[in-house]
């Protein structure tokens, strides 16, 4: 595998887990145009690499991601063009990755940084983690998929409160809301994050990819449409090596060793 020289992120692959760390700690990992592009690039590499079964996204230093750097925003900014060019390709890339993406939200996730955490398939938090929908504080609305994902994750009423009231959600609250899968103490962070990622990497990731492809968007569809999608996806899963391995392991009363194929 070619090694790519990333400037704004780091990319590491270990034991089937690829870790993408936003790496501008002095700017609380705020996005830049280059970082948007490098994240897309890294996701492509991880998607293509057959050995990668799970992707962790995290931040270097104290913050997860502070969102867009407001230094570059002024009265001449065309916010729509900005989103279409910079953020939409990144959010679409995250949605299209068929492998589990875990956001290890090590610190503050603000604005588009919160959108990034929401776009992941799972969120791990620390008690001091803060999700801040900062958008309304500066007269803007949540973007980058935030308005699509959040109500689907925790329901409309809570999502509206978070979007509008702008009150930071602590890691503990996020865990109680069901927004985070696990809350981990800082002392055990690296170890427990890796443990969770490893457990994801050991799943039937072929089946995971099909669930990710259909379940969230299925919330827009009718019962009959979802039934048909399930039938087709089950046919695909039914022809996978993972299914065969699962059946054999069940018969032989042993743990299945999935390959993601």
């Amino acid at each position, binding site marked *: 595998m070619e090694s790519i020289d990333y400037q704004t992120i780091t990319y590491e692959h270990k034991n089937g887990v690829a870790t993408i760390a936003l790496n501008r700690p002095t700017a609380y990992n705020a996005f830049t145009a280059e970082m948007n592009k490098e994240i897309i690039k890294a996701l492509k590499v991880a998607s293509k690499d057959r050995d990668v079964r799970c992707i962790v996204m995290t931040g270097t230093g104290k913050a997860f991601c502070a969102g867009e750097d407001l230094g570059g925003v002024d009265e001449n900014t065309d916010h729509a063009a900005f989103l279409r060019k910079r953020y939409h390709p990144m959010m679409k890339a995250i949605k299209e990755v068929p492998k589990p993406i875990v956001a290890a939200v090590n610190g503050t996730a603000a604005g588009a940084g919160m959108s990034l955490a929401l776009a992941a398939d799972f969120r791990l938090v620390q008690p001091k983690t803060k999700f801040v929908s900062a958008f309304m504080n500066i007269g803007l609305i949540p973007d980058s998929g935030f308005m699509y994902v959040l109500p689907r994750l925790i329901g409309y009423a809570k999502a509206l409160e978070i979007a509008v009231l702008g009150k930071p959600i602590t890691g503990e609250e996020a865990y109680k809301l069901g927004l985070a899968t696990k809350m981990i103490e800082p002392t055990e962070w690296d170890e427990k994050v890796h443990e969770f990622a490893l457990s994801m990497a050991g799943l039937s990731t072929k089946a995971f990819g099909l669930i990710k492809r259909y379940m969230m968007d299925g919330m827009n569809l009718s019962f009959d449409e979802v039934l048909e999608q399930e039938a*087709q*996806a089950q*046919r695909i899963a039914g022809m996978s090596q993972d299914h065969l391995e699962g059946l054999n392991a069940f018969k032989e009363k042993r743990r299945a060793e999935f390959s993601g194929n």
Partner: protein
Amino acid sequence: MTDRSYIKVSRENGVGVIQLHRPEVANALNRKMVDEIVEEMEAFDRDASIRVIVVKGNNKAFAAGADIEEMLEDTPLSIELLDPFAIWDRLTLIKKPVIASVNGFALGGGFELALHCDLIIAGEDVRFGFPEVKLGVMPGAGGTQFLTKAMGKRKALEWIWLGEFMDAKEAMNYGVINRVVAPEMVVEETMRLAEKLSKQPPISLRLIKEAVGKAEELSLMDGMKLERKNFYLAFDSQDQKEGMNAFIEKRSPFFRGV
């Protein structure tokens, strides 16, 4: 399985399959390839053992357009004399059901080929489009006509003017295609539909195809007259007797195509 230069031809349970096969150029259509498609489709149309025809590409592309290099040196007169699109008209004369099975991309001439088919099944990730405008030309093998009949003038203009990719869901919403399925399932779902159709009475399918096709061309009264004649004609088939008897006898019919 028969192989021509640019396509593969096979048959399976009464379904004739034409597979576009120029994988190195995403199945871009050249003139020889179109000739081969038309000839094989006509052969299937004449073959009594074939009831349904399927046109497919590979899992990356149905057909990503026409062969641009072939057109670089064309002049208005050279194209007029060569008349390369005339052979496409023969596709509109095929009497048996034709299904396009689309994965990946169907662009330009590839989209036009799909639009010449009666039914279109596409994967969720399929991109349709007419990018010709970006090359300073326009669709030339029926694109402006077929797409407009399918989705109406306003939407057709938007797509053909901008030359952007239309995703499968958009194509489905406007009735341009019939079904959107998982990309991995496109061929299997196409064959499932083809087999279903192959059990229907072939003479009815043929007469229905003609009548529905004419609905887009004739006045209402002329279309109704044609429909009536075709309805009467169906009564000359043994399948009509079989169908109606099976209904009375409360059993499933078995249609033989005569």
